[in-house]
């Protein structure tokens, strides 16, 4: 097991190097560099200032000649390794990493809540569906989960704004739920716990409905997988009460793949939900990345992508290790 973990750690290195090369190439090839932005923003900027900026970024050598791409790459890599993420262009006086940390908590709250709500609802439904396969209950929820999976989140979000904000404010004079943001500004109750919860409700529900559909299907199929296994038949044959068979023998084994899927979905918490956050003008990392891309804030965009790639790889490894921990039949060597 220990050698397996060490080997997996060593395998992460080439993957990280490849990702850093891809990220670097995207950064360099996708438009003007920050120094050229200085000229675009202020045409009267001194050429010496531009040159100094280019040298600081490792784009040219002392005589002003452009450096080859691979030298630029190593220079960039060195800066990244030293924690020099670069400065944000659209969030003033923030480093690229600082900007991410500014928006990350909001996303973690939103994504965490919706994941929790969807798990609490989806897992019992999935279990019951699998135990009563082909019953009316099963058909109803299987069809509903197809509906949930096919609902575009931005459409669901907009429809919920229409139903819970637009129509009530026109008919009743006040909205049932706010259309966006994380708190009401300029109100006496600005930023209180309930105010925040009130703002969190619609985006959380939209994401939860979408997640629920997937989790119900995962739970149902992973329980169906084990319910016909020989050891479950043995448990029944030796006369165990049905709920012991289900909850002790079948369910515990069915939860093993669920642990893996859950671990693999954790990087999603750090990515935020670009679309739902944009629909609800919710200041999370997903919308931050969208704004960084639109505003050509490449330092922030690239740092975020690199950060997410590292988190994704780490949780892939965690999932593999957890799999061996929860399932003693798996032996890594």
């Amino acid at each position, binding site marked *: 097991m220990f050698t397996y973990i060490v080997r997996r750690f060593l395998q992460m290195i*080439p*993957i990280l190097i*490849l*990702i850093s090369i*891809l990220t670097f190439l*995207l950064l360099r*090839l*996708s*438009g003007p560099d920050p120094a050229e932005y200085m000229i675009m923003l202020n045409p009267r900027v001194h050429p010496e200032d531009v040159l100094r900026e280019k040298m600081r970024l490792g784009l040219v050598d002392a005589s002003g000649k452009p450096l080859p791409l691979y030298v630029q790459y190593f220079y960039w890599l060195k800066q990244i390794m030293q924690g020099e993420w670069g400065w944000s262009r659209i969030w003033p006086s923030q480093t690229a990493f600082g900007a991410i940390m500014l928006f990350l908590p909001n996303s973690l709250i939103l994504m965490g809540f919706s994941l929790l709500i969807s798990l609490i609802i989806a897992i019992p439904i999935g279990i019951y569906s699998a135990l009563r396969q082909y019953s009316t209950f099963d058909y109803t929820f299987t*069809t509903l989960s*197809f*509906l949930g*999976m*096919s*609902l*575009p989140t*931005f*459409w669901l979000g*907009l*429809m919920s*704004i*229409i139903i819970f904000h*637009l*129509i009530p404010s026109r008919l009743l004079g006040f909205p049932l739920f706010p259309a966006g943001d994380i708190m009401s500004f300029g109100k006496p109750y600005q930023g209180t716990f309930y105010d925040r919860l009130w703002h969190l409700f619609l985006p959380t529900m939209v994401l939860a409905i979408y997640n629920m559909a997937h989790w119900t299907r995962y739970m149902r199929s992973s329980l169906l997988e084990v319910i016909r296994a020989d050891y479950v038949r043995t448990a029944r044959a030796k006369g165990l009460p049905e709920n012991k068979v289900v909850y002790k023998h079948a369910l515990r084994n069915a939860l093993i793949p669920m642990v893996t899927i859950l671990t693999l979905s954790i*990087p999603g918490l750090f*990515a935020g939900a*670009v*679309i739902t956050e*944009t*629909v609800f003008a919710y200041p999370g990392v*997903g919308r931050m*990345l*969208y704004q960084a*891309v*639109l505003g*050509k804030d490449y330092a922030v*965009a*690239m740092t*975020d*992508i690199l950060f*997410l*790639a590292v988190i*994704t*790889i780490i949780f*892939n490894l965690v999932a593999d290790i957890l799999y061996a921990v929860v399932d003693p039949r798996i032996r890594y060597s």
Partner: protein
Amino acid sequence: MAVADVTVELAPSFSYWQMVWTRFRKHKLAMFGGAVIIFMILACYAGYPLYVYFTGNDYVSQDLTGRYALPSAQHWFGTDDLGRDVVARILYGGRVSIAVGFISAVASVVIGSLIGVVSAFFGGWIDEALMRFTDVMMSLPYIPLYLVLAMAFGPGFWTLVGIFVAFGWMGDARLVRGVVLSLKNMEFVEAAKAVGASNWRIMVRHLLLNSMAPIIVSTTLAMGGNIVGEAALSYLGLGIQPPLPSWGNILQTAAEYIFAPGNGPWLIFYPGFFLFITVLSFNFMGDGLRDALDPRLKI
């Protein structure tokens, strides 16, 4: 010696595709999905010119004095912020959305299948290299990369298709590799080798054709997924660019003016509803095809 007069009653024999069709027909939701998809394609490709012919509304002509018209016999779903007919825009936009979904799903399946079959058939370092590359591509955070790539290459139809293909083939490659690994040591492959078939012929005619079931299911599901993907990126303004309509950017324009006086909620409802019904149909059909093509299949 007289031979007794016997008539042999043979059970009617069915070909593979007849059995597939029999099983598919029993799946009511999949039949519904198939019917909706055929209807959508007919409506967008044949229905649009008919609609233009009978009502005289096309998807670009503006009528600034008739903005936000209510649904009527002249404009079935009303008009948008520039007085354009919403039905015409949805029908024409449907062509764009369905085309993005179809082209990118087929292209990524072709690429994924080829990588999968080459990887499994040759094995060794080729397999190792291709699968490591697949792993790297899978560990990239793809939604942020969609945004950056769409911005870098300039948003548009072919950029969208390119992005969906670049990040869509990995699942198919793994799927096909798995199937081919279990097929490649079977007798029919050995027989093909014995009669001197080329590697290419074995890979395409024998191995890929025998892994069609998962490939077809995965293509169907990918079409639905890519249609939502198109709509999502167009909604963010990084997909199909106006004046060319797509379900995503029709929705985006409607959403931008969500609080404008006169902007009816139906302007947001209709494009999203068409999108939802189409994607739902692709998902139902994929589910039905999975049961019909190979009941033991797990995707």
